[in-house]
């Protein structure tokens, strides 16, 4: 498993469009993608989970990728957030 902390840069937070881009990008990887925010663990490939977490600009989140191609998935997720 690899992980990294990141600060959300989007002015709208992880709203519809940025969340969609993130989720669609993560869907390409075979590994599991988990986002940790405010003590919760959410599935980084699930748009409904990411949206309902209401992640705002400036939020500190941790991304964990585990499984095949985990490093590549983590790099791309960090770049998108």
């Amino acid at each position: 498993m690899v992980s990294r902390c990141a600060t959300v840069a989007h002015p709208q937070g992880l709203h519809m469009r940025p969340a969609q881009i993130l989720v669609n990008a993560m869907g390409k990887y075979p590994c599991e993608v988990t986002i940790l925010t405010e003590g919760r663990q959410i599935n980084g490939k699930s748009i409904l989970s990411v949206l309902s977490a209401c992640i705002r600009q400036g939020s500190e989140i941790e991304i964990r990728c585990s499984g095949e191609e985990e490093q590549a998935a983590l790099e791309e997720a960090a770049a998108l957030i």
Partner: protein
Amino acid sequence: MILRGIGASGGVGMGPAVCLRAAAPDRAGRGYAGVEDERARLRAASCQVERETAALAERMRVRAGESEPAILTGQITMLRDPELELQLDRAIQEGETAEAAVDAVFGGYIRLFEGLEDERMRLRAADIRDLQSRLLRALLGRREADLSRLPAGCVLVTRELTPSMAVGLDRERVAAILTETGGSASHAAILTRALGIPAVLGAAGALQAVENGELVLVDGDAGTALPRPGRKEQEEYRTRRAALLRRQARLEPYRRRPTVDGDGRRLRLYANVGHPAEAVRAAAEGAEGIGLLRTEFLFLDRAEPPTEEEQLAAYLAAARPFPRGEVVIRTLDAGGDKRIPWLALPQERNPFLGCRGLRASFAQPELFRVQLRALLRAGAEAPGLRVLLPMATSVSEVRKVRAMLAQCAVELEREGMACRLELPLGVMVETPAAARTADLLAQESDFFSIGTNDLTQYILAADRNAPEAKRLYTPFHPAVLRELRDVIRAGRQAGIPVGLCGEAAADPELLPLLLAWGLEELSVSPALLLETRARIAGWTAAEAGAVERQVMALAGPEEIRAYYDAWPHN
């Protein structure tokens, strides 16, 4: 039985009815068919909804230029959500039918989103609900209404015509429109007029009175609709149709003529449009420019604000058909009857007196700056571009926008972007405050455009869409007429151009008054351009002045009505 409503768009149309009824899917009486079958049914329904959504997104992309229909692509992402799929599959394994699983799992997400604190996220509940009902429809074998594939020559019958539905309509296919709600100045009405489709709105009970496939005759001039017309009515319809075609032939020569009054005085005749595609039609119909481009289309039907690049592309597309003409672009006029869900404007008891137009833009300065930057950049390529401010009430607001424009221009220059350093900035005179202080506003503005729809409703305190008050709503009240006269005069005295872009601009009875007051620019919907040009040519200054003196000497709207009823021009 004759149905009565409001004649929102003139002309007559007859054809078989296509009724759009929002029926609640009935899922009683279906038994559980086993895990594999229920899974297969759900998969098939999900694929169908995904295909439909993708096709809709593609159509919107084509129609709205480069704008990305994020709501629709977001729904596709939702359909593929792995957590959602897992829960649906678990419900099916536990013995639920596909319908019951969709009901329960989507219902859970709808409640989850409705309970969120973030207001904009709460709005996503509507997207999930929409997806749920479409999945249920697909499971039950019902098809979604597709407005771009209506049978040719049909009459569309629906509860409400939303502006986004109206954008999908095609004059070649739809002979007429009949709705149960809506008023003549609603945006749906304006769009039907722009498309040139006869329409009767606000005809209560229309969906009960008309059956799918039955012949319906819609009279947009009288505001009536007749289901199952008899032989006599059908004959009358054909006679009127023929007269309409003759009238079109009579107006045809005006397409390429300049706009001049009976004395040869030159006027400017522009078009009001709600979309760049309409600007193309306006140019073909003989418009000399765009007097009003509403920019709301950029902000509707999506989850997030349009980008600067998208706006730039849309403004340039609207200006392209008029390389030498003026193109007046109104900044976002949200609020009032134009709700933009994601904009998160405050819930107000009286939205027409609340945060709308320029006020809503000031409330979201970041959003407003993106629009101003796009306008400045478009101005670099479109020399005729002008900016119009909706709902301005004082000079301080005009100064504030000018300062924001100047600041945006400095930033764009610093970023190395091609842009204009200044743009002509005009006030949409549509509040009594702006009208009364027109002389003061004229010192700060480069032009005026009078918006008669709102100005009339604000002066007379009469809602143009309220069934009981719309009777009072008329520009032919001395209070409105005096205001129009004074605003035109104030603009002329200050030496700035004054135009009129409300629906009154196309009113044949108001025309002589406007000409007598020296109005030089009229902006009307594309369907009314030629008629208006022909009418302007029919008035000399002396004749128009005589009408003006008589009308302005009358005491009330009833007297004015009586005067016009006896008018030789009618």
